[in-house]
């Protein structure tokens, strides 16, 4: 008899490794969360259990009818975009009514992203996000199927309501030829954490300012030849304190002037991922000096020689590790060199972090040589 789909799904679901969490962990996490909520402390996307519920980007990729109205601004890539963006932020955190837009936490070749939080909202998850795209980048291609309709101008510039499977979003021109997109977190079936009016409030309060350097808890004096930084993020959740993604220069240059590629559909190598996070004894062992590159083993039917490269080093004090993941073709000695050249700020004191623009070799900048 042929196996039924439900049976196979059940078998897959039951075939996992021993669970890391038990009933006591769930109770502790629940009590901890309750305490935080009662204390009224807003903890931006940081949860003691290393979990945060994020903005459902799925809503921005909904399927459905074609856009009813297209935004008018479709500027061509500017000279700035062709040269490659600097590792700086132009958005500065601000408060408008009950809403708080934090300083950006993520930089990519395409733009910068900040969380939107609401006073009285969920303490461990942002209510939404706003992404400022660089001049000339049009995010409409990431909104397949969403209904886009013109709405009243914001600061005299065009604005558009975006409806993706019921999720309200707002797209507007925040500067000459530059678009921003505000998205919202799902807050239950058919409910959204921010209203269209609140998204508009964010847009009206948002003004780009002077460029500020993107800060990371780490930097390095060495990056394998030919790699360029395409994404950095910091202080996003307790599971990710700082990270950076580097891809081969040819791929990096292709990203200039376009929205970020969807990682689910992008083919080929994702390059190098650098990741600073709390050390986990079961993964990293006891703190020790130097760089560790675990021996690769065949997993999931993938032969050992096709397994990705992975090395890590402990930060001073042993509480955190900086890891680098690379494709199977990466040179392990180069990954070691990258980690040996790493420098760190004090993880718990962002004021000591390093400017990404100078914390990496100039050759690793998107427009580097």
């Amino acid at each position, binding site marked *: 008899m042929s196996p039924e789909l439900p049976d196979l799904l059940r078998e897959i*679901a039951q075939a996992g490794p021993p669970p890391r969490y038990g009933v006591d962990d769930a109770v502790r996490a629940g009590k901890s969360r309750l305490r935080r909520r009662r204390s009224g402390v807003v903890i931006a996307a940081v949860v003691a*259990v290393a979990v945060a519920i994020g903005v459902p980007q799925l809503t921005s990729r909904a399927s459905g009818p074609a856009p009813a109205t297209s935004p008018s601004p479709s500027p061509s890539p500017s000279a700035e975009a062709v040269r490659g963006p600097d590792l700086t932020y132009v958005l500065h955190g601000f408060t408008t009514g009950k809403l708080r837009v934090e300083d950006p936490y993520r930089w990519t070749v395409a733009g910068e992203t900040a969380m939107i939080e609401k006073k009285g909202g969920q303490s461990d998850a942002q209510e939404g996000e706003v992404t400022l795209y660089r001049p000339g980048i049009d995010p409409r291609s990431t909104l397949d199927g969403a209904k886009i309709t013109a709405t009243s101008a914001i600061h005299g510039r065009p604005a558009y309501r975006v409806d993706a499977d019921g999720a309200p979003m707002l797209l507007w021109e925040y500067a000459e030829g530059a678009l921003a997109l505000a998205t919202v977190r799902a807050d239950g079936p058919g409910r959204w954490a921010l209203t269209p009016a609140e998204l508009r409030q964010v847009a009206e309060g948002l003004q780009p300012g002077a460029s500020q350097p993107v800060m990371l808890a780490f930097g390095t004096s060495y990056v394998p030849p030919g790699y360029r930084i395409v*994404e950095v993020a910091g202080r996003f959740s307790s599971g990710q304190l700082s990270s950076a993604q580097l891809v081969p220069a040819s791929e990096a240059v292709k990203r200039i002037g376009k929205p970020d590629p969807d990682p689910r559909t992008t083919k080929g190598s994702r390059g190098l991922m650098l990741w600073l996070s709390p050390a986990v004894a079961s993964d990293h062992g006891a703190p020790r000096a130097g760089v560790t590159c675990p021996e690769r083993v065949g997993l999931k039917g993938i032969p050992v020689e096709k397994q990705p490269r992975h090395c890590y080093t402990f930060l001073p004090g042993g509480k955190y590790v900086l890891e680098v993941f690379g494709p199977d073709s990466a040179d392990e000695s180069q990954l070691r060199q990258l980690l040996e050249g790493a420098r760190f700020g004090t993880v718990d004191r962002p004021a000591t972090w390093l400017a990404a623009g100078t914390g990496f070799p100039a050759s690793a900048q998107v427009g580097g040589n």
Partner: protein
Amino acid sequence: MSDREAEFREFVGARMESLRGLAYLTCGDWQVAEDAVLGALAKLYGRWHRVDNHDAYARAVVVRAAIDETRRPWWRREQAHSHAAMPDGVVADATPGVDERLRLRAALDRLPVKQRAVVVLRFLEGLSVEQTAVALGFPEGTVKGYTSRGLNALRVDLDERTEGRREPRIA
């Protein structure tokens, strides 16, 4: 121990494992799945007396969290990890049952995450179209469409890769 804690403990003891499986099938990573479940249960604990159907609430929060986790920047690291090493086809296992599970797991991974979540809720959890719509916050028509497209994509995918092997019956 409060009534809430006692009831919550009993619920978690009975449901944590199945919620973990649900999250895993949705996001494809055991560690991410476990974090999603723990986060959902922590949320449920705080709302224990305000939620009528604990099972439905936990299921909905878990699957949504698992979907959301696939959007996180750090997820890209994991994706980079797996994509960098993913061979063109799934390597067959000598054990037929394991092979089938691997092929189905791989086929599920190739579905868009919302379709995958719908298929998992419908066919692992046995939810109706209406219940799935409530859990995911989708219109019922969307659930029907995703179910149909998801099953069809699985069928086509498995057909293409089966090449005479025994295939799971998915409709």
